[in-house]
């Protein structure tokens, strides 16, 4: 194993150890999606088709919010506490650091997706025509997107109060335009065009490909687009991890 890979792995292990000391956060990250999906099922008790339509996209939205929040706060703490400054005086590279975070949060998102989709597709009876493995893969891709956006948010915030405000600022507009409330094809042309530029739209399209149309190739294409957005956000974010600061 190369020294760089070893440093990334050590970072992933450290991030997971930090979470292990915080079981309440982990329990919330895993439990809240399950409770919300159950609640949605109860709300749509007499509208099975509506549950199929809204329940699946939610599976992609949870990892976006969860990973956005933990990344933005974790990286803000690294910046404020001085640990980032210390790390950048060691042989650890910026991409190695982000690789470690991506590995840890990707695993966490996968665990969240496996448990939430097992409940949603199983006992709650969400109807999925495509592969449930693709559901998990899509959730992990969305988690990496959440990490990239969270990393960017951490660069523009000076406090935890500020950083959490970036969640409604960056994610709620995407939520309104992603096709969850109104199908994107039925939106005004201008809004449809805007929604084409937003990554969450492709995550929701991907889920619809898996649940409504059973189009695995369509879903794979959407996963690739989400991953491309994630890579873009992570590369921009890596640029904000400055070695030399004022």
């Amino acid at each position: 194993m190369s020294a760089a890979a070893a440093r990334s792995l050590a970072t992933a292990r450290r991030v997971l150890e930090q979470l292990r000391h915080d079981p309440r956060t982990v329990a919330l990250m895993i439990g809240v999606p399950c409770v919300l999906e159950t609640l949605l099922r109860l709300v749509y008790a007499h509208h099975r088709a509506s549950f199929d339509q809204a329940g699946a996209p939610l599976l992609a939205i949870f990892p976006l919010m969860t990973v956005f929040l933990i990344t933005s706060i974790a990286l803000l703490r690294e910046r404020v506490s001085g640990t980032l400054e210390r790390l950048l005086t060691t042989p650890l590279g910026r991409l190695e650091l982000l690789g470690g975070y991506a590995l840890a949060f990707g695993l966490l998102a996968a665990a969240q997706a496996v448990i939430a989709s097992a409940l949603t597709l199983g006992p709650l009876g969400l109807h999925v025509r495509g592969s449930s493995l693709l559901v998990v893969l899509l959730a992990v891709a969305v988690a990496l997107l959440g990490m990239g956006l969270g990393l960017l948010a951490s660069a523009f915030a000076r406090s935890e109060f500020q950083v959490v405000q970036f969640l409604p600022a960056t994610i709620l507009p995407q939520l309104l335009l992603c096709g969850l409330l109104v199908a994107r094809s039925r939106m005004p042309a201008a809004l449809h065009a805007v929604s084409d530029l937003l990554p969450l739209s492709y995550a929701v399209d991907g889920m619809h490909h898996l649940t409504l149309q059973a189009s695995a190739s369509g879903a794979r294409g959407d996963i690739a687009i989400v991953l491309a957005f994630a890579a873009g956000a992570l590369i921009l974010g890596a640029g904000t991890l400055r070695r030399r600061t004022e």
Partner: protein
Amino acid sequence: MGRTELGREPGARCAAVAARDVRVRRRGIEALRGLSFEIAAGGITGLFGPSGSGKSTLIRAIAGVQAAVVGELTVLGLPAGSPSLRHQLGYMTQAPSVYEDLTVEENLRYFAAICGARTDGLLERVGLLEQASQLVRRLSGGQRTRVSLAAALLGKPPLLLLDEPTVGLDPLLRRELWRLFRELADEGAALMISSHVLEEAGRCDDLLLLREGSLVAQLSPAQLTARAHTHDMDEAFVRLIEERR
């Protein structure tokens, strides 16, 4: 790479740090105003001066994390901030920069892994053996400082930059830490230690006295007390500044 192999002239030991007209401008204010000095590759150099005199800025410039550094700043024979220096520097920031939601042991294991170093005997050395499996969050201020110090010592770097390592600690602990610093210097490391407690100046081999971003003097503790005709370091510093006016 050993320190002695880095000398530019054959046979000569090169300086751990060499500065020529080093300036840092921050938000329109000159934080460092043209510093020139050399620090020997070994021994303890104390960096003294009141708060806001530029001590941290200078240490950060040497560590390669300070933006907008102008002038010539050479560290172990290389320009400050060179990637290969990252294996040879131990840097302890002013606030204990360790993960407070990890145990002492987990912190050191992580920093050791990214430095490619071993943690053998380190906890004993900083007196934290009993706290190894405690979360840093639950430790006292002095204990946290020592976790941060232990992380800086990983891999036995030839140059240690310690920014106010003894601030706010009780006198007993301060004495213990200075004993450790002396041990490290005896083992061949160069230490640059900042402090605003002037009584600690007597424990250094060499002193850099800073005031408002300028170097007031570089001298040994004996020279300082001799020049100021007093053994009170505080008084000596004040007299030196007044003499300069």
